[in-house]
């Protein structure tokens, strides 16, 4: 338990009076890839938003890298978030600045590195995601897949210990989606990151998942290894994998 990088216990959450997540508990060990999956509207993105501290739950506990996320003050939360990278569903790059400038934001804001080192690091991260040629382009000039990769370069700018990715393959063709998955696996290997990926794309799940958290109607109906999930006799899980 102590070596887990993410611990979630009895998480209950929702909007107004409506409960979206009910009694969710799981943990993620270092270097593991946890895939949160389930059908549309089951609370996957809401859970991810809790894990990155964007929304507060009704009750329960979330620990990231051993730190209590819910009871942290703003400064503690900011320090914690420096060790976390987030790949948003639509990339969420700032459209008015170039790709290189987007990647430089966390480096400029959270380190005291000089401009030359920042420039080197930006180009290094871009080459890791295969986007060296797009450094001076505006995000609007890139394709969907390229935007995702640029956003990934920004998310890994500070060598995060945990990377959260919200539907990384959404809106991409199968070839680009699969190359993005390979990229995530490579980055996990090279940077030793722990990954939490929200997706409902079967191909992607089979390629990257070590462990699965299956949500159904706001409840965690399955939590375990991918191989066990494939053999599971829990009805929504079975239906999902046999679809």
């Amino acid at each position, binding site marked *: 338990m102590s070596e887990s990088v993410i611990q979630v216990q009895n998480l209950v959450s929702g909007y107004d009076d409506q409960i979206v997540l009910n009694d969710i508990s799981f943990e993620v060990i270092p270097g593991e890839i946890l895939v949160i999956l389930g059908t549309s509207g089951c609370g996957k993105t809401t859970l991810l938003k809790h894990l990155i501290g964007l929304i507060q739950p009704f009750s329960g506990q979330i620990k990231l890298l051993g730190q209590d996320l819910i009871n942290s003050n703003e400064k503690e939360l900011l320090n914690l978030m420096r060790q976390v990278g987030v790949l948003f569903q639509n990339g969420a790059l700032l459209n008015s600045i170039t790709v*290189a400038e987007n990647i430089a934001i966390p480096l400029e804001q959270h380190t*005291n590195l000089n401009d*030359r080192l920042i420039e080197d690091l930006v*180009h290094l991260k871009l*080459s890791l995601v295969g986007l060296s*040629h797009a450094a001076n382009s505006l995000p609007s000039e890139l394709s969907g897949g390229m935007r995702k990769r640029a956003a990934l370069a920004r998310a890994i700018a500070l*060598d995060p210990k945990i990377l959260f990715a919200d539907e990384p393959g959404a809106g991409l063709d199968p070839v680009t989606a699969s190359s993005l998955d390979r990229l995530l696996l490579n980055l996990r290997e090279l940077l030793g990151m722990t990954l939490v990926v929200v997706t409902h794309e079967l191909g992607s799940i089979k390629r990257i998942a070590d462990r699965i958290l299956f949500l159904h109607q706001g409840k965690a109906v399955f939590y375990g290894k991918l191989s066990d999930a494939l053999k599971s006799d829990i009805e929504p899980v079975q239906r999902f994998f046999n679809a």
Partner: protein
Amino acid sequence: MEQIQITLPEQISHSLIKDLQKEIAPYKSKKFEGQSVWLDFSNTKQLDSAVAVFLHRLKEDFKKQNIELCWINTSEEVEKSLKLFSPLARAKLEAKRKNFFETIGELGYNLFNQFVESIFLFSNIGFWAIVSFFKPGMRRKGEIANQGVLIGVNALPIVVLIAFLIGFILALQSAAQLRQFGANIYVADLIAIAMVSEMGPLITAILVAGRSGSAITAEIATMKVSEEIDALTVMGVDPIPYLIVPKLYALVITLPLLTVFANIIGILGGAIIGVTYLDISIYPFFKEVFSVLRYKEIITGLVKSLSFSIIILLTATYFGFKVKGGAEGVGRVTTASVVASIFFVIVADSILGLIFYFGEPAF
């Protein structure tokens, strides 16, 4: 050859780079030329990418000084990080710098292209404006009235308010001067001519350019970035007669009407000062207004406002179609459109003012 050995700490992250630099920097001097500096990684278990890049750069800098910087006792993890985060492997990405002549040339080329593009667009709009006058089926049913309400009727309150204040202030400022010469009644002349031939059309056009011109640009630009214009084109619907021409008709009809309203309200604003501050009765004030206004002033104002309506529409449309990128592109062209519209309206006002001033009064 002498060797200097520095042992690095267990974990080195970007926050320790400055300390590391301080420790190593003294060896980067001529005193140590031809010698070796060994960085001992025996305690180090982890390096982040920033430190790896820093060490690679440091190695290059030492090499320039003829000092060898080598790392020893590197673990597999450290070796992997140093190999992966090597800035030497990156592609050269420096943007090509343009010289002065290239910059001027590119600017001229872009301006010429924009000029040609705008001529094509304006001719296209002109052509379809004439054609669709005879073929109303090309336009969306009721769209001219709809646009007339959006562009004209909804702008009425703000136009009336501003025109009233302009007439009021103009009369107030001139009354103080005219009073000294006992020429109080000429406030009526001044307000009537200034409002009808100059301030009315100009203020109305500036307000409409800011309010409706920006809305037209934003609408077209948003449609373009969300591929709605492309959708119309592939459905065989030309966006110019379908989207733009109704707006043109609506502007051409409503802007002169708004100007007439502005003129009347502006003169009323002046009349309030005439009656309350200069003790002119309401009847002599308006008698003076009607006696000083000739057809020339009225036609000048109407021709101006008609020209302004076309300028606003063409500028708004041009910038709307010129959009590039996403939401930020829409914002950019909308701002540019308003600035350009107001600029062109004022330039056109000056040119028309000169033409009507020096031209023979035909009326």
